[in-house]
């Protein structure tokens, strides 16, 4: 909790202690509650603005927290110290260019060698992707064949449920081994033990050495980072793929075929320290941006950490607009309350006169009406917070209701209670009570007692 929240909490605590323990405070509180209870509907209606304002703040902040958590988890899955470089097919190299049958683009082995010389890089994990049907007897599965190195499992935090991942030996010896993603394994081996069995990729047969645990797919980031579903993958050693499949990749589409030559589809770079992620990203950008190396922009660089900044910015934006919404609704609520309090003061003019005659000072009258307004906005704030908190916890249930599909998109973030927002909105509500209660209270206090006593 930051200092601001601490100050707010202690302010609220002092106010509550004052109201609960001192004679004057308790009497003021009791009096306020009593006169609010006398006009239940009126009090509730005038509180509505505050209730809506505070609950909106709680709920929107909770959604902000929820989406932040979603993004943070995504970043964690991508790895905070990672930089991801991907091969991108340049737009001018589309299939319409018939003279070039084989599209050559992307990251090369030479890039990999150069990147190995950057000192802050601790690990380079290249990978190639082949869209290739995997067969096992009569069963086929359209999986993504990923040719990579053993470190790939660490970088992407892949867990095995059976067997082992690729090892260096597989790569050096160009072994025909593969590791199956969870879904792929289930689809190819619905009934029997996959480990030690073999699957066929193209013309070659590979022995299954490991099965991955089920893993959530990562979310995509715009154009530079596609969503990845690790469950559909098959992993084979990079050198094996080079030997067995060659450099060209044949792509078959309906009625046409094309080929492309891509050394590597992606290199995942791991940096030794989170502080060096951005500088290293710049270095990589400078190396690959050399026109001799890559005359066209056929690569893209993603720094997952950058998304963290985006989240921070989004969060700041959310807070700002929240501040505006909250101010507007609290302003409206405050005006509503002031209106009702002015009416109340007029209605109770005679009471003010009586109290003054019986010895009440102006400050006693001010205190009485101010406390009444503050109690009103405070209760409104509490109700709003209660509603907001209940909503946050009931969201999952509400989302499951049949009609909720129209309101909530698939995969929209779930709200997480943002605790400081409770303090903010409560103290703002009480503050609104002070701001909008002071004028009616002073108006009551500065009435002429004689006039007030004559009031019918």
């Amino acid at each position, binding site marked *: 909790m930051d200092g601001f929240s601490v100050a707010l909490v202690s302010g609220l605590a002092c106010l509550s202690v004052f109201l609960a323990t001192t*004679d004057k405070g308790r*009497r003021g509180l009791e009096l306020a509650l*009593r*006169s609010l209870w*006398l006009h239940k509907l009126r009090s509730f209606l005038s509180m509505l603005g505050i209730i809506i304002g505070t609950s909106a703040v709680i709920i929107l902040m909770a959604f902000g927290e929820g989406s932040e958590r979603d993004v943070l988890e995504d970043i964690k899955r991508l790895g905070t110290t990672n930089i991801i470089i991907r091969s991108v097919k340049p737009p001018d190299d589309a299939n319409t260019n018939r003279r070039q049958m084989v599209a050559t683009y992307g990251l090369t082995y030479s890039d990999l060698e150069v990147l190995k010389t950057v000192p802050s890089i601790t690990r380079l994990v290249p990978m190639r992707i082949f869209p290739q049907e995997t067969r096992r007897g009569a069963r086929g599965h359209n999986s993504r064949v990923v040719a990579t190195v053993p470190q790939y499992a660490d970088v992407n935090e892949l867990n095995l449920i059976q067997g082992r991942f690729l090892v260096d030996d597989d790569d050096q010896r160009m072994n025909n081994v593969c590791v199956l993603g969870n879904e792929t394994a289930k689809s190819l081996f619905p009934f029997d033990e996959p480990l030690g069995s073999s699957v066929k990729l193209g013309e070659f047969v590979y022995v299954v050495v490991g099965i991955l645990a089920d893993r959530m797919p990562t979310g995509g980031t715009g154009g530079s980072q596609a969503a990845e579903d690790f469950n559909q993958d098959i992993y084979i050693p990079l050198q094996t793929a080079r030997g067995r499949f060659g450099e060209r990749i044949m792509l078959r589409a309906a009625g046409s075929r094309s080929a492309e030559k891509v050394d590597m589809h992606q290199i995942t770079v791991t940096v030794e320290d989170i502080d060096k992620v951005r500088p290293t990203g710049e270095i990589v950008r400078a190396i690959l941006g050399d026109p001799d190396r890559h005359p066209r922009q056929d690569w893209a660089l993603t720094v997952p950490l950058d998304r963290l900044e985006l989240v921070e910015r989004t969060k700041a934006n959310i807070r700002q607009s929240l501040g505006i919404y909250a101010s507007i609704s609290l302003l409206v609520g405050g005006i509503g309350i002031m209106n009702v309090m002015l009416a109340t003061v007029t209605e109770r003019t*005679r*009471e003010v*006169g*009586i*109290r*003054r*005659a*019986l*010895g*009440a*000072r*102006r*400050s*006693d009258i001010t205190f009485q009406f101010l406390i009444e307004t503050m109690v009103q906005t405070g209760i409104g704030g509490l109700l709003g917070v209660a509603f907001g908190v209940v909503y946050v916890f009931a969201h999952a249930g509400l989302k499951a209701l049949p009609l909720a599909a129209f309101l909530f998109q698939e995969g929209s973030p779930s709200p997480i209670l943002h605790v400081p927002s409770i303090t903010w909105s409560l103290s703002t509500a009480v503050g609104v009570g002070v701001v909008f209660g002071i004028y009616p209270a002073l108006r009551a206090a500065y009435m002429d*007692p*004689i006039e007030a*006593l004559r009031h019918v």
Partner: protein
Amino acid sequence: MTEVLRIHGLHKRYSHDSAEVHALKGIDLVVNQGDFVSLMGPSGSGKSTLLNVLGCLDRPSEGSYHLGGEDVSRMGDDQLSSIRSRYLGFIFQQYNLLPQYTVVENIEIPLIYQGVRLNAESRTRCVALAELVGLGHRLDHRPMQLSGGQQQRVAIARSLVNKPHLILADEPTGNLDTKTSHEIMTLLSRLNMSGKTIVMVTHENDIAKWSKRIVRMRDGVIESDEANIPDPIDDSGPPLPMHLLEEAA
């Protein structure tokens, strides 16, 4: 005899819609401890204005006003509030009880503004006062559940709770029938006999004759100020527990 209040050369002017109203034109008045004064006069004579000044709800434009030895004519608003809560008890024509409070809570109100801590002891005193005015069985009733005479009794009890030097009554029987008026006046007379100083505004001769002194006003000046011998109190009813007054107020 101790003076409760002394007014000398009192003037009160209002500017009302740019026209100046000269409501009190030099009033001299002394009220002693134990007095029971009736202020009489036609409407516009200034008797209500005088009562407001006496009640420290209004300040004189000119002249001095000493209440219990203190000059209150130049006091600020907060000081006047304090004087009201310590020295004065009010009884109004409209009873002026607070509808959201019970009988005993209404009696307690002046104590709140006196800064007295409400506790079992103060509650006992308030209950005793309610019993004194004959409402010991109605402690938890709201004003709306009481008759006019009963409400006025509560108001009298309330005016006694701060042990005032002076009780100001503004047409206390104005809204009551003859029989109830009689009861209220009996109560006030008994309070006076036990030592309470009372200044009462009325325009009814029948009511004024209960007091010991009748001050008649006309056009902002005192026209006459004469002693009156009140009729002996009709003691046919059950006796009021006057001992409670000594204990409670």
